[in-house]
C-alpha cells in the first residue's frame, strides 16, 4: 500500500511527465526528422486553397462556425451509440426504447436547424434576416 503522498501521487506525476514529454517530443521530432523544403509555395501558410491575402481581421461568414459547432454536437451525440451497441443485447427492449427517444430528440434538433436554414447555403439572406 502506498502511504506517503509522494507514493500516492507518483503515478499522477508520471502521467503528467509523459503527457508533456509526448507533446514536446512530437513537435521536436517533426522538426528534427522532417524534410525541409524551401520554396515560395511551401513557405505560404497553406499549400492549397485561397491565397491568404488581405487583413488578418477579415470576417468569416458565421456559417463556418455554425456548421463546425453543429458537427461537434452531433458527433458527440453519435458517440453515445457505441457503448449502447455493446450492451444492447443484455439490456433488451428498454434500451431500444431509450435510445429511440434519444435519437428522436436529436432528430428534432436536426429538424430545427434544418428548418431554420442553417444547412441551406444558398439562402444566406434568410439567415441574416433572423
Amino acid at each position, binding site marked *: 500500500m502506498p502511504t506517503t503522498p509522494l507514493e500516492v501521487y507518483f503515478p499522477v506525476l508520471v502521467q503528467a511527465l509523459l503527457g508533456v514529454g509526448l507533446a514536446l517530443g512530437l513537435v521536436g521530432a517533426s522538426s528534427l526528422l522532417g524534410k525541409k523544403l524551401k520554396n515560395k509555395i511551401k513557405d505560404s501558410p497553406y499549400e492549397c486553397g485561397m491565397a491568404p491575402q488581405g487583413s488578418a481581421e477579415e470576417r468569416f461568414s458565421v456559417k463556418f462556425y455554425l456548421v463546425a459547432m453543429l458537427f461537434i454536437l452531433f458527433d458527440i451525440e453519435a458517440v453515445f451509440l457505441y457503448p449502447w451497441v455493446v450492451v444492447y443485447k443484455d*439490456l433488451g427492449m428498454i434500451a431500444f426504447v431509450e435510445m429511440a427517444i434519444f435519437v428522436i430528440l436529436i432528430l428534432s434538433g436536426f*429538424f430545427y436547424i434544418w428548418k431554420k436554414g442553417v444547412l441551406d447555403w444558398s439562402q444566406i439572406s434568410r439567415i441574416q434576416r433572423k
Partner: protein
Amino acid sequence: MPANFAFPTEAEYIRFLPETILILMGTLIMVLEGFAGDGHRKGTHKVALFGLFLAMAAACYAGSNPGPAFSDFLLVDGFGTFFRMLVLTVGILAVLCSPSYLSRERADSGEYYALILYSLVGQCILATANELIMVFIGLEISSIATYVLAGYLRDDKRNNESAIKYFLLGSFATAFLLYGVAWIYGLTGSTNLAVIRQYLQTSATADPALVGLAAGLMFVGFAFKVSAAPFQAWTPDVYQGAPAPVTAFMSAGPKAAAFAVFIRVYITAFDGIAETWLPVVWVSALATMVIGNFAALTQTNIKRVLAYSSIAHAGYVLVAVAAHSQIGTAAAMFYLASYVFMNIGAFALISHLSRQGERYVQVNDLAGLSQRQPVTAALFAIFLLSLIGVPLTGGFFGKFYIFKAALDSQLYWLTVLGLLNSAVAAYYYLRIIVVMYFHEPGHATESLEEPAAGIRVASLVAALAVVVLGVAPSLLLNVASRSSAIGR
C-alpha cells in the same frame, strides 16, 4: 453489465417526470418554431406555460412518493420538491412577463421559451441531485441556457456584454466546482453525497486539509452562482445588461436552485467537516451583505440597485446557512421563496417601465409614477417594502426566521451586523418609493402606457404571494420546516 445493475422502476421514472416534461415541451417548442412562419411565432409562450403547469403537477405527483431514482443519482424528497415547485413558479412568472417585452423588442421567438424550459430542467435537477456529477450536470444545463438568455437580444450591446461576462466568468467558476468534485472523488472514492458523508465521518484516511481544499473548490463554484462575496463582481453588470424579464428569471430561479444544491451538498456530504466551512460561510455572509447593501446606496440605475440588493439578499440566506441547523435550512427555504416573489415582481414591473430598448431604467425615470399608474406604483412599493423587510410582507418574516435561526445557533455578532445591514438597506429602497410617490411626473412617466396583461398577472400574483407570506407565514413555513430535514 455490472452485477448490481437494476432497471429503473416505474416510480423512478415518475420521480424524473417534471424534467422529462420540461425537455419534451422545450423540444416541442423548437419543432413548432421550425414549422411556424415568420408571422406565427407569438403563441409559443402558451405552450411553455402549459408545459410549466404540467411539470408543476408532475413535481407534486413525484413529491407524493418520495425516494431515490436512477441508482441514487436523484433524491426526490420534500426539500427537492419544495425547490422544484419554487423554480417552476419562477418559470411561470418569467414566461408571463416575457411576451410583451419580446414583441416590443421585435424578438418574438420560441427559442426564448425553450431556453427557459431547458434552464429549468437544470434547476430541477439541482433541486433533487444526490450526487456530485448530477450537481455538475444540473448546474451546466441551468447555466448554459441562462448564458444564452442573457444575450438574447443579440443586436443589443448590453445584452452581449452581459452574456459574455456571465459566460466567461461562469464557466471559470464552474471549472473550480468540477475540480472540487474530482478531488472529492479522489479522496473519498465516491460522488454520492450520503456515501461521502459517511466516509468523512467514519474514516480517518482522508487528509482533512485536502478535504477542506476540495470543499473550498466547490464553495467557489456555488458561491459564484449565488453571487456571494468575494465572487459577486459579475452580478451587477450581468443583471443590468440582460433583458429585464431574463434578469427577473435569473435573479430568482438559478439562484434559488444554486442555494438548494449548496445547502444540500454542504449539509449532507460535508456535514462532518462543518467546522472547516462554517467560518468561511460566516465571513462570506457578512461580506456579501455589506458589499451588496453599501454598494447599492449610490446606484442610480434601478436594475443595478436591484442587482446589488440581490447580492445583499444572498448574504442573508448565507446567514441561515451559517446557522447550520434544521431551523436555519427552513429559514433559508422560506426566505428564498419570499425573495423569489418580491424580486421577480420588481423585475416584471421594470420590464414594463423600461420601455422599448430599456431607455428608462434610472431611478428618476419613475418620478410621479403613483399619479400616472397608482396600481403599478403600489405593487412596486409592496415589493420594495418587502425587500426592506417591513412587517406584513414576506421579506419581514424571511429575515425574522433567518436571524432567529442565527441566534439559536449563537451567531450573535452575525445577527447584529446583519440587522444593522438591513437597517442601512432601507435607504436605497426608500429612495425609489420617494421618487415614485413624492416627485412630480417626468417625461418618462408621462408617456407610460398600460402594462401588458401578462405583466399585470405576474406582478399581481407576486404581490399577493408577498402579502400572504407576510400575513400568514405558517402556510409556507410549515412546509419548509417539514422539508428541511436533509442529510439526516
